[in-house]
């Protein structure tokens, strides 16, 4: 065939912009700290701005909590603990159900704010983040009066005050993952959202206030690393739950070494997504796309290392490149956007640095022909071919839309390479052969294994890592254990 075989995407039929309406959303100019059921001014009197990463425009400003504010929040949580933990499970559950329902009612508002504050596409915040967050509350609400069934032969008791620190990649969803099981188990909470994405947590604070939850049961305070450190080091906190980077997780583990604080950590990852020659290849390609480009790759369980069996490598790469051509990168508020804005300038610089490293290491880079908006923080979906296990872009978590692709020949080889990493959060396996799936799922050192699918989440399904990806599980029955003495 002399004719060039190339498919042309986005050539004949460009979709017009379809922006989600944000007029119905109310965001205040300034937010205080949510302590003991009301919004209070920070002791420091300091506020910091939060920006829309897609436009670099300031959206609002939020309070910067210092040690005294943290102490105030912990005292409120401690004061509320006695009554809350003694409340019958049935009653506790009803409050949590109420939160779930209110969130469902205000779902669109939450989705819009999540997208404005964090840069993720409205399609994801609307269809994934917010519904999952509400479902998480709904799921754990039902556990509140059934705890003794979760731990046979035990009499589970709440731990006390939980200090919870969450990241910027799934701001509302992570708040739900933290707060819902803590409350169901009878604990009270001091939660700090990430400094670049505080708004949906503060809207959640408003919702919690409206729900009539007893004062002080949930306290939500904003700030950066110093605020987080003050929570970690507060002597009257019984449990630290952290989701974020492995480095900070290690720092937390070290900081609380001399105490009796319980701890769960959900940290970084560098997941292997493994495609065998007998896989359903078109769905596998979709799994690769969902694995690495979901939420701009800001996902701890992102399938950032792709392993393709050599016999199908060419065809998989071709399909992947074609699929990447159809990805729409741009305004996160546009309903058709597949890849939104990188969460912050700082993160964009880090990703760009890794792309440079990948190029310098000799990786073969490919990016689709899409254009990026002139304003805001955007990054083209990127893949690197011909990389090897010792490349930095293969070993280090990039937390962006950058995929490192290696080929393999045998099952032994790919298992060894997949596990040859300090992380162990998740993995993907694609093959049509059932017995091979179970061989792989059993040998991969990862807390979640997606077989013939990727990046799926559900409140009933435990999530968490092996090795340096942390310990403890969130979600499902196993997620309750993190908030109880058993």
């Amino acid at each position, binding site marked *: 065939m002399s004719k060039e075989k190339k498919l042309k995407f986005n050539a004949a039929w460009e979709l017009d912009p379809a922006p989600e309406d944000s007029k119905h959303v109310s965001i205040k100019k300034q937010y205080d700290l949510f302590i003991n059921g009301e919004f209070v001014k920070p002791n420091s009197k300091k506020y910091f701005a939060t920006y829309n990463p897609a436009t670099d425009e300031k959206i609002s400003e939020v309070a910067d909590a210092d040690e005294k504010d943290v102490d105030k929040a912990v005292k409120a949580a401690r004061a509320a603990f006695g009554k809350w933990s003694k409340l019958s499970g049935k009653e506790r559950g009803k409050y949590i159900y109420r939160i779930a329902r209110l969130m469902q009612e205000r779902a669109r508002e939450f989705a819009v704010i999540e997208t404005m504050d964090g840069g993720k596409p409205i399609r994801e915040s609307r269809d994934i983040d917010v519904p999952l967050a509400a479902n998480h509350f709904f799921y754990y609400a039902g556990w509140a009066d059934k705890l003794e069934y979760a731990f046979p032969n035990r009499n589970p008791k709440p731990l006390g005050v939980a200090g919870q620190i969450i990241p910027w990649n799934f701001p509302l969803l992570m708040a739900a993952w933290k707060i819902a099981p803590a409350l169901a188990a009878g604990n009270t909470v001091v939660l700090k959202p990430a400094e670049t994405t505080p708004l949906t947590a503060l809207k959640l604070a408003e919702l919690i206030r409206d729900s009539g939850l007893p004062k002080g049961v949930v306290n939500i305070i904003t700030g950066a690393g110093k605020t987080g450190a003050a929570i970690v080091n507060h002597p009257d906190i019984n449990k630290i739950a952290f989701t974020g980077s492995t480095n900070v*997780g290690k720092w937390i583990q070290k900081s609380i070494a001399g105490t009796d604080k319980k701890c769960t950590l959900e940290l970084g990852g560098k997941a292997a997504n493994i495609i065998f020659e007998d896989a359903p290849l078109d769905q596998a390609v979709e799994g690769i796309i969902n694995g690495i480009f979901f939420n701009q790759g800001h996902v701890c369980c992102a399938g950032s290392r792709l392993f393709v069996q050599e016999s199908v490598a060419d065809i998989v790469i071709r399909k992947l490149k074609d699929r990447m051509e159809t990805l729409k990168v741009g305004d996160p508020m546009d309903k058709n956007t597949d890849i939104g804005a990188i969460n912050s300038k700082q993160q964009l610089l880090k990703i760009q640095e890794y792309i440079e490293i990948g190029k310098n290491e000799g990786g073969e880079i490919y990016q689709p022909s899409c254009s990026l908006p002139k304003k805001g923080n955007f990054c083209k979906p990127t893949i690197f071919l011909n990389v090897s296990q010792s490349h930095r872009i293969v070993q280090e978590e990039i937390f962006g839309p950058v995929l490192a692709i290696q080929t393999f020949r045998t099952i032994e080889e790919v298992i060894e390479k997949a596990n040859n990493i300090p992380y162990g959060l998740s993995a993907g396996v694609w093959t049509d052969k059932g017995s091979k799936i179970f061989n792989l799922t059993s040998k991969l050192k990862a807390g979640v294994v997606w077989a013939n699918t990727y990046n*799926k989440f559900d409140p*009933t*399904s435990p999530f968490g890592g092996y*090795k340096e990806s942390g310990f403890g*599980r969130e979600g499902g029955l*196993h997620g309750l254990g993190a908030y109880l003495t058993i």
Partner: protein
Amino acid sequence: MARIEIQKTYKIYIGGQFPRTESGRYYPLKNKKGDVIANICLCSRKDFRNAEVAARAAQSGWGSRAAFNRAQILYRIAEMLEGRKEQFISELLLQGSTLAAAKKEVEISIDRMVYYSGWCDKFQAIYSSVNPVASSHFNFSVPEPTGVVAIIADETTSLLGLVTAIAPVIAGGNTCIVLASETKPLCAVTFAEVLNSSDLPGGVVNILTGTAAELHEHFSNHMDVNTVIYYRNNKAEIKTIKENASLNVKRVFVYNKINIATEKAESPYFIFDTQEIKTTWHPIENIGASKAGY
């Protein structure tokens, strides 16, 4: 003329072998009267390193054995213990126990091993789950061994502390390196002989003798150890262990509030502590009249 008794040389147990400590060091163990009854290996950082290598090498084989087979081996250990009952009792007497206490300690130890033998192929059913996710996927969670576990065992008992620490860890498919009681180390070495004759593969359990003061640092900072379990009461050691654990996000369990002589010290929850929960997803095809699912 009375026959000259053959005295036992107390060595350590690494990878199914009985070497002396590579350091060549020892410490004398004395009875109540102050007589030296044995020279005990004073293990070093390198002994721990060697033991860890053996434990890591043995882990995947042990962890992937049929649970039923692990149960049989643990039961076999109990049988061997029973057969050597008199020897353990006499060693406990040497180390200052009363006869009644010695007898009781050995019997509880044997029974505890049988107890955990029974759990080998049952705890999975207690701690696994099928999770009814909302999408068309089959989703299940199962416990898997965490890997290599470094244990600083109870100081106050010679045999029971070891059995209490080791049994749940290996029942769950892990391998371990255990530091025996410093002041009561005799049964540890004899227990290793029991293990060695019980079909337990070499490297699954490795037993060192020496001081926690010297070794806790190395037990907790080794990058290829997954979990550290500590049964003693030294607050400074606990803090160091937890701090070192952060080097590679080790799991740390401190079991110093449990009376190991009681049944409170035996439960599947101790097995669960050295397990990781793995969740697997797979699509469920939907063809036909009604929706498939779990």
